[in-house]
């Protein structure tokens, strides 16, 4: 992890390249996070990749309900030579959950982006094959959102077999 000063230096360089790409920085529990403007996150990640953070360790979603913008996409970047990690967070609004795909930078982002789309409904523009990955293809709703109830999925038992959609016709 870069220390707090290191993070500010990185953010400064990123702002120099694109003034509107960085919304802020957070340094908490030894974790350095760059808060990115979602429409410009692709360029920001590309610059970080050129800087040495060339390995995308993880990409995951997070719902910040009830705060707005609600849906967060987090990129955990890793510099394997300096053994340094930095996290990039971009938050999108629920009514326009669009963010640029990074599959062109890291082909390995394919499955994780599909998972975030599946679970949170964030649409990754430019993704080659954006389909549901863990949930069934005809599933409606985004189960990892905080306002999606636990136990909202009816389980097929003998007593509710007749009126279940899973009933064999």
């Amino acid at each position, binding site marked *: 992890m870069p220390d707090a000063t290191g993070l500010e230096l990185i953010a400064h360089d990123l702002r120099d390249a694109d003034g509107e790409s960085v919304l802020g920085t957070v340094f908490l529990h030894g974790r350095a996070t760059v808060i990115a403007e979602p429409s410009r996150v692709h360029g920001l990640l590309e610059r970080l990749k050129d800087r040495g953070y060339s390995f995308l360790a993880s990409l995951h979603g997070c719902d910040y309900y009830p705060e707005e913008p609600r849906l967060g996409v987090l990129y955990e970047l890793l510099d394997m030579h300096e053994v340094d990690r930095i996290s990039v967070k971009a938050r999108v609004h629920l009514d326009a959950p669009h963010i640029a795909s990074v599959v062109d930078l890291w082909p390995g982002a394919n499955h994780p982006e599909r998972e975030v789309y599946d679970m949170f409904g964030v649409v990754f523009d430019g993704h080659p094959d954006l389909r549901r990955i*863990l949930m069934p293809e005809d599933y409606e709703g985004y189960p990892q959102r905080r306002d999606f109830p*636990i136990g909202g999925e009816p389980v097929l038992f003998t007593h509710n077999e007749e009126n279940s959609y899973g009933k064999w016709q």
Partner: protein
Amino acid sequence: MSATSDYRRQEESITLSSESAGQGETHELLTLNIGPHHPATHGVLRLLVTLEGEIVRDIKPIIGYVHTGIEKTCEDKAYWKVIPCVERMDYLSYYFNAMAFCGAVETLLGIEVPPRAQYLRVIHLELNRIMSHLVWLGTSALDLGAMSMFWYCFRERETILDLFEMSSGQRMHTRYFQVGGVMEDIPVGFAEKLAAFTKNMPTRADQYAALLEQNEIVLQRLRNVCPLDEQTLLSLGVTGPLLRAAGNPWDLRKAEPYSSYDHFEFKIPVGTVGDNYDRFRVRHAELYESTKIIDQALQGLPEGPHITTDRKVALPPRHELATSMEALIHHFKLVTEGFRVPAGEAYYPIESPRGELGCFVRADGSAKPARVHMRDPSFVNLQATAPMCKDAYIADLIATLAMLDPILGGIDR
């Protein structure tokens, strides 16, 4: 050279380029569905394979058949009740799942894990690594047609599960790791039994090698089959033995030591070309290295508490409840509500038997996590199947899938 090499050389003269695919009566693409219930897919994995004769032209993995929403369930549980949930993700490396989660929560809480607990964790993590590799070795050999390896591997696995039962009372999904340390100190007799195991294990690993490495069929099935270079693996996010087989010695135990891994001397096995044989050899060599770590951890096991003395996080010892009102209050609060974690986010990566296992935890200040996400190595590594197996034989696809070691419980969560 061997018969297979000759056969492959003859095959080279036959052009099977994809341009000619799908045209005429002699060239037809066949789409074959493998799985989801198929022993060679190591779980409930479905593969849509496009074949041209025997050659694999494209693979689409379809997953989600064992998706049980564990991450969602975790959001409804107090932190200490999340541990049994996350253990059930990657069901062969339950100690690793628990370690990643506990590590993330400990980072958020800012508590120190006592040295004895760290060493006990290392012992169990490495035992789990051996156990996971043994299951992989046995089932992979089974895929290649070697029946007896399976029984030998599961014999040693039984010994490890007996040890787990001894220390925690459970053979699988032990819930041994707690936030701040481990559940209990190791019982009397555990150290002796563990020492006997580590003494035995290298000999057993030698025997596995003698059985497999001198076997012409195994060698022909693995050598120079489905290699993938380091740069492609890195761009796909692949970590663990698969990346090390391609020659990159990336291991989080060395690179970012956690839980006192920097106290132990061990080597990182690496391959050279990154074919199936290297993948096999790297994991096999890790059996020896893990045994070495266990030996050192057992010999250097420090004295002291096995869990943090912070009563806000860890349960007080049972005997204190009868005499101390404060202990009783802490016990009551911990069992009913659980402990609260200050708001924040943490990502805690560790080296699981399959690669980087990272747990992301977002705390909102309450006693339940607002988000738990596991970056499961199998989920990411599965993307490497298509580039590895493209233009290989369908029989090699099965061997490669075995060497990839995907655990569907971890992929689907």
